[in-house]
Structure formats: structure tokens, C-alpha cells
């Protein structure tokens, strides 16, 4: 099976005024095609930081990659520029957030927010209706 995502020895830290907070320490895992991987852990164990690191959504500074690689489709996401990441986010890698109350913009319609990613990545027309298809 093809390996899609490979996180190798990932360490992420945050610089705080006290000291360096090591949020993720030496995490490695692989994700293959047609595979579901669930990460389970106590709160504060670094699940979210790991997931946000893959999307490069950690604000830097104060966050920083200390070591490790995130290989996605044989390319290291850590080396990507912010512009390159913009075309990966929402197209190659998606993310669903926990809290629907705060994850939606109160001044934008739901329809606009749902189609936001599609319009951005698939060059869809804003005027035409968008039909979503999915298969299970």
C-alpha cells in the first residue's frame, strides 16, 4: 500500500517567557492509502499540535520545529513556503475542527464557508451553483 503521510521524529516547541515548552517530542507515524489513523491521548498530550504541525498551522513564532520531517507525497512539508502550503491546505489535506460554534465565521453564510475551499482550489465559478458529490 502506498505511503501517503509519514511523520518522522517530529518535535515541536513553543518559546515562552519562562522557557521552551516541548509540546511534541519525537513523534513518528506512517499513514497509508485507504487507512484510518486515530490519535488518542490525554488533553495536553500534543494531539492537536501534531495535527496542526502537519498543516503548518502552528503560529511561528512562538512555535518552532525542533527536529523531524513531515513527508507528504514524498515531499517534506516543513520545507514548503507559506504560498505552497496554501495550495496544499484544503486541497490535499483537510481538517475538521472540534467546535462548530467557534469554527464558523458569524458574519459569513454557511454556504459561502462550505464552498470557500472549493472555489479556491477547483477554480469553480462563484455564480454557478456547486453540486457536491461524495461516495462512501
Amino acid at each position, binding site marked *: 500500500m502506498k505511503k501517503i503521510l509519514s511523520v518522522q521524529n517530529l518535535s515541536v516547541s513553543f518559546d515562552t517567557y519562562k522557557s521552551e515548552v516541548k509540546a511534541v517530542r519525537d513523534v513518528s507515524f506512517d499513514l497509508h492509502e485507504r487507512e484510518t489513523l486515530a490519535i488518542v491521548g490525554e488533553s495536553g498530550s500534543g494531539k492537536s499540535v501534531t495535527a496542526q504541525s502537519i*498543516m503548518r*498551522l502552528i503560529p511561528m*513564532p512562538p512555535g518552532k520545529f525542533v527536529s523531524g520531517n513531515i513527508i507528504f507525497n514524498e515531499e517534506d512539508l516543513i520545507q514548503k513556503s507559506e*504560498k505552497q502550503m*496554501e*495550495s*496544499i*491546505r*484544503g*486541497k490535499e489535506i*483537510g*481538517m475538521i*475542527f472540534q*467546535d462548530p460554534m*467557534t*469554527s*464558523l*465565521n*458569524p*458574519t*459569513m*453564510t454557511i454556504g459561502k*464557508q462550505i464552498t*470557500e*475551499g472549493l472555489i*479556491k*482550489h477547483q477554480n469553480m465559478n462563484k455564480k454557478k451553483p456547486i453540486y457536491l458529490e461524495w461516495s462512501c
Partner: protein
Amino acid sequence: MSQQQLTNVDFEPLHIDHAESEKIVGKSTSYWKDAWRRFRKNKLALTGIVVLLFLGFMAAFGADISGENFRDNDLMSTNQAPSSDHWFGTDNLGRDIFARTWDGARISLFIGLTAAFLDLIIGIIWGAISGYFGGKVDEYMMRIADILSSLPYLLVVILLMVVMGQGIWTMIIAMVITGWINMARIVRGQVMQLRSEEYVLASKSLGAGNSRLLFKHLVPNTLGPILVTLTLTVPNAIFTEAFLSFLGLGVPMPDSSWGVMTSEALGSFQYFPYQLFFPAFFICLTMLAFNVIGDGLRDALDPKDRK
């Protein structure tokens, strides 16, 4: 006590029609419709709107209603009291105060709205960029703003007057140079607060770029405080214009403005108080109207206050 017989039927779950329960109860309203509904309940703010519309209408057409020209002297009838000929009386050069009041309204409102609008544009862009990027960018941008806001306003006006000459645009530019900082600070504060919201992160995770995040997600969410500040900026600008004209630094002759009129009327205030009354009254009325509208907007646009 009679014993009640319970059968299995009593424990059957009630039938729930899922299609029925998914139906949306009540009309869906947009944010602005909802705000307007709340705004309408505020009678005082609504009165403010009506007064403002009236002032705007009179500013546009009022000067022509009386059939008098705001700059025509009639030296045979100077300092006339209000009468059927001259509805608000005449000033010391025999000019019709009614016509001058509305010509002045045109200029005062133009200055107020234009200055506030320019403040708004510069303030939003500057404040949003500063608040969004934070760090060094924020530091430099806000220090520049601080330096500009520490310039005494009158000094800027007088210096600009030397360069550009006396005029409406000199005043507007001077007002904008020192005035946009307030707006920028408010937008910056709001954006800083909002940029850590989850929906910004969510949109970022969909691949939205900086400019999209800023102007599609962050700025629309700051519109409430921005509008409120705007409605308080307009009367401020109008008042500043009146103040400058009063000092003789404002609107040049022969144009009138409320400030010019109060300034001219002050000399003969003890004998012809009506000359001072009309422009002063309309300055107050405009300020009051804008202030109550701003107050109403603040209540209407606060999403935390929804009922």
C-alpha cells in the same frame, strides 16, 4: 388507591418524525437584517436618522427653496430679524441666513463625511495589517501612528495652509492626517482579538491566504465597532470644521459654513442673537443626531446582545 394497569404499549417510544423536526422554525435572518430590526426599536436613534435625512435633504436643496442666494448682498436690509422675506433673517452684509445656513450645511456635511470616510479607509487598512501580522510590523506601524497622533492638530492645519492655501481640502487633509489613528487603533485591537478565533484557523486550513483572511473574515467582523466609531467621527469632523472656521482658519470667503456663520455672528451677538442661533442650533442638532445614531448602532450591532 386503584392500581393502574401498565401494558407494553405504554412503554412504546413516541413516534418522532425526523423530517418534521429538521424543519427550520422561523425565518432565517441575516446579520444585517437582524441588526436593523434591533435598531428600529430604538426610537431615539430612528429620530436621529430622520433628522439627518432632513438635514441632508436641506443641504442638497434647501439653499434654493427660499429663492435667495447665499452670497448676494442686500445692503438696504442688513441685520434683519426673521420675517417672511428672510426666513432666518439677514446678516450684517444683508445676506439671507436661511440660504447661508443650508449652503453651510452642504459644506459642513461634505467635510464631515469626507474626512470620516478617508479616516475609515486608511484606518481599516493600517489597523488591520498592523493587528494581523503583529510583532515587528505592528510595532513599527503603531509607532508611526503614535508619532502622527502626537502632532498638534492646529499646527498641521496651519502648516498645510501655508503649503496648500486656505480651503476645504486643506482642512480635510489636515483632519485625516491626525484623525485616522483613532480608527486604526480600534481596528487593530479588534483584529488582534479576532485573529486567534477558530474560524480564522479553519479558513486558513482551507487554504485561504492572508489578504482573504484579513478582508473577508476579519474586517467584516470588526464592522460593528468601526461603524460606531464612524458615526462618532463624523460629528467630530463637523465640529472641528466649525471650530477652525470660527478661528478664521477654515472655509474661505464667500462660502459659508456653520463655523463661519457663528464666527461672523458673534460680534453682534448681543443685538442680533438670531444670527448666532441658527448655525449654532444646526451644529448641535447634527452632532446630537450622529451621536444618538452611533449609540443605537452600538446596541444594534453587538452580536452578544442578541435577543
